[in-house]
């Protein structure tokens, strides 16, 4: 019996179900694990996503896209398969895709996931299966996250220690920005400036019922003193851009799992790095693979060779890399 999913040029394909998961190209049926740009691309005829994902996916794909929301754990038929979506804990609405076929068994595609608590999304649900397709963005044991609350506290104190100049915190516009805002909600009433690229998605979070700190948009024209002591969230693409010139002598930080390694921080040129990731760290990856009780594990993204080899040699699990979908791309962290 051939496996339920395989890598093809358009992306990860389930032939028996007649659909693709997070396709790169245009297909008939696209099951979307979450609304990050490299997973949810325009151009497919029909999209299936979690109901929690609807607002953000709509913001990403536009009003004309045909989107079919499904509740978590709701079972529905696609082709010869029965499919259901389960919380992945990555960002709002993120889902693992469970695919069941009466002869080929059960396969779960994790999408991106994490095990740490996150006030903006449902926590990861372990789904037992025969074949588990896991991400491996941070699949080296040097990556082990500390308590997110502690990291946000450090970030908060660092911001508060600078009252004369603005504090620029770089983070991904979807997911990380709102996670920081949600953590800040209980710490301050002071509005946080957000970059224009974050407006739509932040609204979508609020419409989905997630409690966030107060935010305000950056005015068209401003004088440097407007931002003294303010916290500004902005995407990494704004770093060292002309946009940044409106802030005078800001202190800068990047919030990402990549910041666990000093060389990464130095190379990217941020003063501070806060290690907060929406992906699973090494211990969580290994634990999750074991909890699914999968007999076959396919590893994709990032350090897939290392994780697969470790699972084979140290844990006696039949594991192998699943093609190289994104070799050379570090992905969002």
């Amino acid at each position, binding site marked *: 019996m051939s496996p339920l999913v395989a890598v093809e040029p358009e992306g990860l394909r389930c032939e028996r179900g007649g659909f693709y998961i997070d396709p790169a190209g245009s297909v008939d049926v696209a099951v979307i694990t979450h609304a990050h740009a490299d997973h949810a691309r325009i151009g497919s005829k029909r999209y299936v996503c979690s109901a929690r994902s609807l607002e953000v996916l709509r913001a990403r794909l536009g009003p004309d896209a045909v989107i079919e929301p499904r509740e978590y754990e709701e079972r529905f038929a696609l082709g010869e398969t029965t499919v259901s979506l389960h919380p992945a804990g990555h960002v709002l609405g993120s889902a693992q895709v469970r695919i069941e076929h009466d002869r080929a068994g059960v396969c779960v595609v994790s999408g991106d996931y994490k095990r740490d608590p996150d006030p903006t999304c449902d926590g990861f649900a372990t789904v037992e299966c025969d074949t588990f397709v896991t991400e491996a963005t941070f699949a080296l*044991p*040097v990556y*082990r996250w500390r308590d997110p609350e502690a990291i946000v506290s450090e970030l908060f104190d660092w911001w508060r220690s600078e009252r004369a100049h603005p504090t620029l915190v770089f983070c991904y516009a979807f997911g990380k920005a709102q996670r920081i805002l949600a953590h800040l909600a209980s710490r301050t009433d002071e509005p946080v400036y957000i970059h224009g690229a974050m407006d739509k998605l932040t609204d979508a979070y609020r419409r989905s019922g997630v409690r966030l700190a107060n935010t305000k948009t950056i005015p068209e024209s401003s004088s440097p003193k407007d931002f003294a002591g303010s916290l500004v969230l902005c995407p990494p693409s704004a770093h060292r851009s002309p946009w940044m010139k409106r802030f005078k002598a800001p*202190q800068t930080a990047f919030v990402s799992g990549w910041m666990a*390694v*000093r*060389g990464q921080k130095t*190379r990217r040129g941020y*003063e501070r790095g806060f290690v907060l990731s929406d992906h699973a760290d090494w211990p969580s990856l290994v634990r999750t693979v074991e909890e699914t009780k999968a007999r076959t594990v396919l590893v994709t993204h990032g350090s897939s060779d290392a994780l697969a080899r470790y699972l084979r040699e140290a844990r006696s699990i039949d594991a192998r890399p699943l093609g190289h979908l994104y070799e*050379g791309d570090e992905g969002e962290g």
Partner: protein
Amino acid sequence: MKVFCALYRGLDDASGNNEKIALMREYFRSAPAHDAAWALYLLLDKKKSALSSGALRQRLIELTSMPEWLFEECRSHVGDTAETVALLLHMLPAAEADESLTSLSLHEWMEREIPSCPRDDAAAQREALGRFWRALDARDALVLNKVLTGAFRVGVSVGLVQRALAEALEVEGTRIQHALTGEWAPSAGLFDALRDARASLDVSKPYPFMLAHPLEADFAFEPGQWQVEYKWDGIRGQVVKRDGQVFLWSRGEELVSEAFPDLCEPLAKLPDGTVIDGEILAWDEEGKRPAPFAVLQTRLQRKKLTAAHLREAPAHVIAYDLIEWGGVDWRERPLTERVAQLEAIVREQALSALTVSERFEPKDREALEALRESARERGAEGVMLKDRASTYQPGRKRGLWWKHKREPMTVDAVLVFAQAGSGRRANLFTDYTFALWRGGELVTFAKAYSGLSDEELVELDKWIRKNTREKHGPVRVVEPAHVFELAFEGIAKSARHKSGLAVRFPRILRWRRDKPASEADTVERAEALLNL
């Protein structure tokens, strides 16, 4: 120790020199004197490694039982062994932490705990490191590991540390510089001694070296203004003669007297209170020109020198300058006066092991360039231009001294292997091995790390990932497709290299996108450079 670790992180995060100086100044002011002296010692990179990074790696692998290949994957991703080890400490099996270690001060760590970790006993190392690592969190363990392996780089220059210290102690910068040159011990009394301007300095103490900038493109040559001499390719050093003893210092502020008994003995004839700046060279057997740098290097690496070494590569000093005479600091006198006195001394003492650097008077820029090109046949690196009126100032002062090196030798070579870099290049394939053609085969020739722009590095990294033929551990064998022009300062025969050639200071000059691999240079073409 905790306060010092916080200083390390502060320096690591600091964005500008002023912020770094302020952090260090505050630390030097507030830390207990004994700890502050140790911090100074570490910041100036005086501490020799207690352990090799290989030992650190091995002990971690044993203590965690993690597979060796997994460590290597992590190491090549992180780009630094001390940091990799710190990030992997969560894999240690749980055990009681030694509470007595957590509150120890820096000097207690440096004088008691770290020396208890022996260099050559694996079992004792394992015991000591296990105790250290469990007592610290990952961030402090990084600092400890850096201290242990003696690679304590945190992006502060010697000058910055000295400025911060001068500000903290409210002492003149030049005095701090002089007092901290050469060897000194990080004792509790150090800061008091530095504050006391009348305290005498150690007899072996050399002076901070004066250095030169590369000649700038718009330099206008005025013949009368400049003293011109060859720039020799040996070990820049100082000969210090005080209290009946000779001390030889390298520019890296290492005492190298023991490697040069054939210099120390004849130079003992110098009067006490003399300090000469010059170049230590290995002289070829005929005594006419310097031997290649590699010959000098073999002498430095030997623990014990044999009579054969002394005979085959006798050492010689070419003196450039006089810094101290009759026990008096001469640095404020003009160059012409210092050099005239230097010549008089050498004449009077009839020293054979030391000659004064020959001076030239090129009449115009063209003659200067001709002299520069003649450097190669004389075995020199190029020429130096020194303002005749210049005083002897520490560090690189723009406009007073210039170095004008001869053009490097170059070949076009093919990229064949790549490996991930270190530090800010971690996880990028930026350490390259290049090859030249011999018959129909590519033979590895040199490794080079520098010379490409950040954009080129990223582009090449992507290409390497897509065009890997084989992986051997961290090394990727790539398609032989890209040609690079490599520059180097010297070339010599070598039995240790596949091509039979070894080059000095290889670096990438440019990416030859216009050349296919088949048009890269041959080993024969590189061999022809041997005779230049």
